[in-house]
C-alpha cells in the first residue's frame, strides 16, 4: 500500500473537514444590526416559543413596521432547547441581535455579565413603565437598574383534560384550590385508570420552588445564595418517588423529555392526564390538545406557592447599534394597545395593566382561557418569588440532569439531592 495514496486520502479527509467547518465559521460572522441605506434602520429580534406565539409576534412586528416605515425588523424564531446556546454563540461572536427574549434562569447571567443594556435612561422617554406592576418590573431589575421589560405575566398552573378525567370517573380540581392529599388521591385514581395522573414534576427547579414557598422557603435568598438544603430537596423528590410507584406520576421515559415545550410534553403525548406548567403555555396546550383546562396547584400550610412572574423579558443588547429604535420596539411590544390585542395571551397576560384590561374585554379563543384562569386564581397568587442570580441557568440544567439519574435509578434520592446542592454552591460561588 503506497504511502502516497494514504496521504492523498488524508488530504481528501482534511478537505472534507475543512468544507464542513468553514460554513460553521461563516455562520458566526453574520452581521448584526446596521443603519442601512437611505436612513433605513434594520433591527434584529430573536425569541423562542410555540407556534401560536410565533404567529402573533410576527403580526405585531408587521404592525410596528407599518407604523415605522423606515425600520425593518428581522426576526429569528427558534425552539427553546437551542435558543440560549445559539444566542450565546452569536453574542460572543459579535453578531448579536438588538432585541432578545430572555427567561428567568438566564436573566441574572445576561444582566450581570453586561450583555444587556441598562434601560433606566430610556424610562419615561422611549420606554414607559407607569402601567406595569412594580412587582413584575422588579424581575427585570438588578441593583435598582432596569435591564429588561416583562413581555407578559404568568403564574403556575395544572393543565388537564376535563373529558379524560370525567371518563376516568375523577372529579375536576376545585377552582378554589385543593390540598396535597386531595391532589395525590386524584392522581393515584387517574393512574389506576390507565394513564398516569400527572407529569412527574420533579424535573424542574421551578416546581420545586413552588413547593419550597409552601414550606416558607425559597430557591435563592435575596443576596443570591442558595435558599434550600439537601434535606428539602430529598423530601420533595422522596414524595415523588412514592407517587411514581403508584403510577400517580409519569414514567421516567416520558419525564426525561420534559422541557416545557409542546412536542416534548408528556401530557400532550398522552403519557399523563395532567401537567404542571406556567399558564403562559395554556394557549399552546389548547392548540395542541383542544379542550385543555387549567387548575390551581395544591397548597400546603395555607399557601399555594404560586407567584406572578414575567413570562419572558425583553432586553436590549449592549452591542446594538440602533438602541434608540430598538427601545421603541420594546416599548411597542409591551405597551401598545394594538400590539397587545394581537399578542393576546401568547406570553401570558399583557404586562401593561391598561392594555390588559382593554384586551380582557375583547379576548377570545385560547387566550381567553388564560385571562379566565388568571382571574380565577388571583387571590391564590401571593408568593413573591426571588430574582434568580448568576449561575441559576447552570443550576436549573444540572437539577434536571440529576433528576434523570434519580428517576432511572442511577442514583438515590439522597445522593441526588446532595449532588444538586453541592453543585449549586459551586455554581453560585464562581
Amino acid at each position, binding site marked *: *500500500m*503506497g504511502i502516497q*495514496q*494514504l496521504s492523498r*486520502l488524508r488530504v481528501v*479527509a482534511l478537505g472534507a473537514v475543512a468544507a*464542513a467547518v468553514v460554513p460553521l*465559521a461563516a455562520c458566526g460572522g453574520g452581521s448584526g444590526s446596521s443603519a442601512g441605506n437611505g436612513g433605513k434602520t434594520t433591527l434584529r429580534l430573536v425569541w423562542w416559543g410555540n407556534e401560536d406565539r410565533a404567529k402573533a409576534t410576527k403580526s405585531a412586528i408587521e404592525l410596528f413596521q407599518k407604523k415605522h416605515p423606515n425600520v425593518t425588523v428581522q426576526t429569528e424564531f427558534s425552539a427553546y*432547547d*437551542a435558543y*440560549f*446556546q445559539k444566542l*450565546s*454563540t452569536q*453574542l*460572543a461572536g459579535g453578531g448579536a441581535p438588538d432585541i432578545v427574549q430572555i427567561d428567568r434562569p438566564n436573566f441574572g*447571567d445576561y444582566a450581570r*455579565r*453586561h*450583555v444587556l443594556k441598562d434601560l433606566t435612561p430610556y424610562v419615561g422617554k422611549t420606554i414607559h413603565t407607569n402601567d406595569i406592576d412594580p412587582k413584575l418590573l422588579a424581575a427585570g431589575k438588578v441593583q435598582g437598574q432596569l435591564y429588561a421589560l416583562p413581555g407578559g405575566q404568568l403564574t403556575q398552573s395544572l393543565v388537564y383534560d376535563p373529558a379524560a378525567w370525567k371518563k376516568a370517573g375523577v372529579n375536576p380540581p376545585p377552582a378554589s384550590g385543593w390540598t396535597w392529599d386531595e391532589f395525590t388521591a386524584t392522581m393515584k385514581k387517574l393512574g389506576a385508570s390507565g394513564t398516569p395522573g400527572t407529569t412527574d414534576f420533579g424535573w424542574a427547579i421551578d416546581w420545586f420552588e413552588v413547593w419550597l414557598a409552601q414550606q416558607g422557603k425559597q430557591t435563592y435568598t435575596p443576596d443570591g445564595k442558595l435558599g434550600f438544603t439537601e434535606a428539602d430537596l430529598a423530601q420533595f423528590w422522596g414524595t415523588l418517588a412514592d407517587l411514581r410507584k403508584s403510577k400517580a406520576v409519569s414514567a*421516567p*421515559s*416520558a419525564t*426525561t*423529555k420534559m*422541557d416545557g415545550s409542546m412536542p*416534548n410534553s408528556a401530557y400532550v*403525548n398522552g*403519557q399523563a392526564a395532567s401537567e404542571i406548567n406556567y399558564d403562559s403555555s395554556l394557549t399552546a396546550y389548547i392548540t395542541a390538545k383542544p379542550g385543555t383546562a387549567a387548575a390551581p396547584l395544591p397548597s400546603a400550610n395555607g399557601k399555594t406557592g404560586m407567584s406572578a412572574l414575567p413570562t419572558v423579558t425583553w432586553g436590549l443588547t449592549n452591542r446594538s447599534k440602533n438602541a434608540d429604535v430598538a427601545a421603541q420596539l420594546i416599548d411597542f411590544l409591551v405597551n401598545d394597545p394594538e400590539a397587545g390585542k394581537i399578542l393576546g395571551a401568547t406570553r401570558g397576560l399583557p404586562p401593561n395593566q391598561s392594555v390588559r384590561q382593554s384586551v380582557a374585554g375583547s379576548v377570545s379563543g385560547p387566550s381567553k382561557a388564560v385571562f379566565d384562569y388568571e382571574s380565577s386564581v388571583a387571590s391564590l397568587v401571593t408568593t413573591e418569588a426571588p430574582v434568580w442570580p448568576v449561575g441559576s*441557568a*447552570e443550576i436549573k*440544567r*444540572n437539577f*434536571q*440532569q440529576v433528576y*434523570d*439519574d434519580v*428517576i*432511572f435509578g*442511577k442514583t438515590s434520592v439522597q445522593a441526588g439531592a446532595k*449532588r444538586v446542592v*453541592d*453543585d449549586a454552591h*459551586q*455554581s453560585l460561588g*464562581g
Partner: protein
Amino acid sequence: MSTQTVAQPSVESRSPAPPAPKSRRTERSAYLFLAPWLVGALVLTIGPMLASLFLSFTDYDLFTSPHWVGLANYRQMFTADQSFRSSAAVTGKFVLLSVPLKLALALAVALLLNRPRRGQGIYRSLFYAPSLLGASVAVALVWRVLFSDKGTVDRLLSAVGIHTGGWISNPDYALLTLVALAVWQFGAPMVIFLAGLKQIPRDLYDAAAVDGAGRIRTFWSVTVPMLTPVLFFNLVLESIHAFQSFTSAFIVSGGRGGPSDSTLFYTLYLYQRGFADFRMGYAAAMAWVLLVVIAVLTALIFRSSRSWVHYAGDDQ
C-alpha cells in the same frame, strides 16, 4: 541573483549540481504557494488553539474579560465534577463500541464489494451514501424519529411482541442507537479498505491456493496481514473521529445528553459548559484535556502498530 541564473540557463541544464541561488528561489516560491495554507493554519488553527489554552486558565464567560484562575478549572474537573466523569465514560464507551463495529462492518462490505460482479459501481455508491449524509442534522433527526417512543422501530418490534418503548428515552439503549448511527456510516473506511484490497498482489492468493489454503485461511494469512497498514490508518482516523462526535448526540437528545446522561458525550458537555453555563474557560480546559487524551491514545496506537502492522516488503 535572479538575473544571473536567468542569464546562464545553458550552464544550469548541463551541470547536475544544484546552484544555491536557484534553490533559494524555489524555496521562496514554495513558501509563496504554501502561504494560503500557512496563513490559514496560523490564523484559523494555531492562533485560536493558543487562545483557548490561555482561556483554560481563566474564568472567561463569553461576555466579560477573562480573569486568571490558574489550575482551578482543571482541579474542579478532576475532583468535583460528576458530569465530567460521566461524560468521559460515555465517550469512552462510545469509542470502544463504535470503532471496532464500524471497522468490522466496513471491512466485511469491502470484501463483498471486492469480488467482481455486475453493477458493482452502483453497490459501492449505495453503501457509501449514508456516509455522505452522515454528519448531517437531517439524518440525526430521522434517527430520533425512528427510535423514539411509538417510533418506527418501536412499532415494528411491538408488532412481533417485543415491547421496548422508545430507545432514545431509555438510558440503557440510547447510546446504542448513536453507536448504530455511527456504524451505519461506514462508507469512508470501507472505501479505504477497498483500495487496500485492490493493492494486495494477486500472486499471493494464487500461491495460497496452490498451497491448498481455504478461504478462511487465505483471509487470515494473506488478506489480513496485507491489509494491516490500511487497518491501522482507519483505526487512527476513526478513533479520533469517534472521540469528537457531537452532532448525533446533540440532535437526538435535544442538546441535553439525556436520558440520565446516557448520551452526554464529552463534546456535548463541553458545549453545555461553554454556551449554556457561560463557563467558556472551563470548556476550553475540557477541550485541552480531550486533545491530550486523543494525542496520547493515538501515540499508543502508533507504538502498538510496530507489533501488528505488516508492511509488504519488510520481511521479504
